[in-house]
């Protein structure tokens, strides 16, 4: 009898315990009734499935969320979403500030004083909105710088750069109109100066001033006009443009960082062929 070579045969795998390895159901067997925990777990899936069956939203969600991103994607690529979260924070705190704020020339300062000094968490929410506005402007510029230095504005993403510049301008208009709302000395004089800077535009300047102030002087409706622009007109426009911005990001994909090199096939290198 020839001698078998000395090899070690692997041991047969240990079968998992039956609790982790349930026997497959026999065809035609009755479905067991789910226990309450299983029913609760299934409810969410069921509800999502019900909506998805009628809207096909899961496809859109998958298209948006599970994108291929280039090698080398790094933390700089989070500046855009950071800006968006700054905007969302401004939107939410702004809505709640509007519950206490009164955009009347005689009441505005008093209502802001009430928010800061008396309303529960008022100073905190107002502070979030006030400092958050600066954070948003800083993040907008950092995001813009990332896009510029990574060359991410080039074909085919020029339109997204244009939308981004529109969003930058709208953010600045938000800062300008929001600055008046606390209606203290600083707000008032800063707005006088800001409006007069607009007025130095040749030909249209004087009329632009009248439009902003609702008249030739700072008047009874100037504050409410700024308030309406700040909290109703612009947030809607900004939200819509952010939607378009995000759609184009998902549609066109993100760019690789400029230092990333395309992988070359060794066999196709010119000097080796």
């Amino acid at each position, binding site marked *: 009898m020839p001698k078998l070579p000395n090899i070690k045969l692997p041991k047969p795998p240990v079968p998992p315990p039956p609790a982790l390895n349930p026997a497959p159901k026999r065809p035609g067997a009755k479905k067991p009734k789910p226990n309450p925990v299983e029913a609760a777990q299934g409810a969410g899936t069921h509800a999502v499935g019900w909506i998805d069956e009628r809207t096909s939203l899961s496809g859109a969600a998958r298209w948006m969320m599970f994108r291929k991103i280039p090698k080398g994607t790094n933390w700089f690529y989070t500046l855009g979403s950071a800006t968006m979260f700054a905007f969302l924070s401004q939107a939410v705190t702004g809505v709640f500030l509007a519950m206490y704020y009164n955009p009347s020339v005689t009441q505005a300062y008093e209502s802001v004083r009430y928010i800061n000094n008396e309303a529960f968490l008022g100073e905190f929410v107002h502070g979030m909105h006030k400092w958050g506005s600066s954070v948003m402007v800083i993040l907008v510029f950092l995001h813009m710088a990332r896009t510029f230095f990574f060359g991410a504005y080039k074909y085919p993403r020029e339109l997204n750069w244009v939308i981004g510049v529109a969003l930058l301008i709208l953010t600045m208009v938000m800062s300008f109109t929001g600055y008046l709302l606390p209606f203290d000395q600083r707000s008032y004089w800063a707005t006088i*100066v800001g409006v007069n800077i607009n007025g130095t535009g040749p030909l249209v300047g004087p009329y632009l001033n009248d439009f902003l102030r609702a008249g030739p002087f700072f008047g009874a409706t100037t504050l409410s006009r700024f308030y309406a622009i700040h909290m109703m007109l612009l947030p809607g426009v900004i939200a819509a443009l952010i939607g378009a911005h995000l759609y184009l990001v998902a549609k066109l994909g993100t760019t690789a960082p400029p230092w990333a090199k395309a992988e070359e096939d060794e066999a196709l290198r010119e000097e080796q062929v």
Partner: protein
Amino acid sequence: MSDKHQTKSKYTSDRQIPGAFEGETVTRRRFMTTTTHVAGAVAASAFLLPALGFALGPVFEQHIEKWQDIGAEGDFGADDYTPKTIQVTDGIGEAGRGTAYVRKYNPQVDSQPIDEYNHYIAISSSCMHLGCPVQYVPAAERFICPCHGGVYNVEGKVAGGPPVRPLDRYYTRVRHGRVQLGPKYSVNSNLDKFSPRDPGEPLDGIGQFLYPSRPTLRKDPNQSNQ
């Protein structure tokens, strides 16, 4: 086989469209599409145009300034300015008030001829750089702006800094021994009168055309009978 791209005739009847009228050039599909677009445009402008007019209305609204009492004739000297709080806009509390610096006409200082409306010189405190409030400093005989360093001499002419024209003025008149302050007017560096302009808008040379006066705000001292 008929290819619709080869039918060149503009008449629908030539193009074998069923039910076409004699001489008809617009297909019914195209007519209905256009009608729907026009209806949509009419519906949208029905709310957009009034809203826009509502927002732009104040640009075209006539603004009439009233004469207001600022004190007795004896309150104002010829060598020094007296600050007076004046009402610029009614009904908005402190935010509607401004300051005018007032003195008696002084032949040694004032170059322009005396007339019915400048027995008392009233100078607006709004800096002609960007509208901050200037303050008169008697020791220096200068108006000084705290924001960006605008300086004006005793006549209100620019003595230094960024302002683009002399300080605005108000018409004044005397009624029954009381000094009254009327509409505002702007001046260029020769103190020629112009309809009120906003700060930052030069009036010398081409400036008066680059920054047109608004039809809603005139320099006419007789605009109001009060």
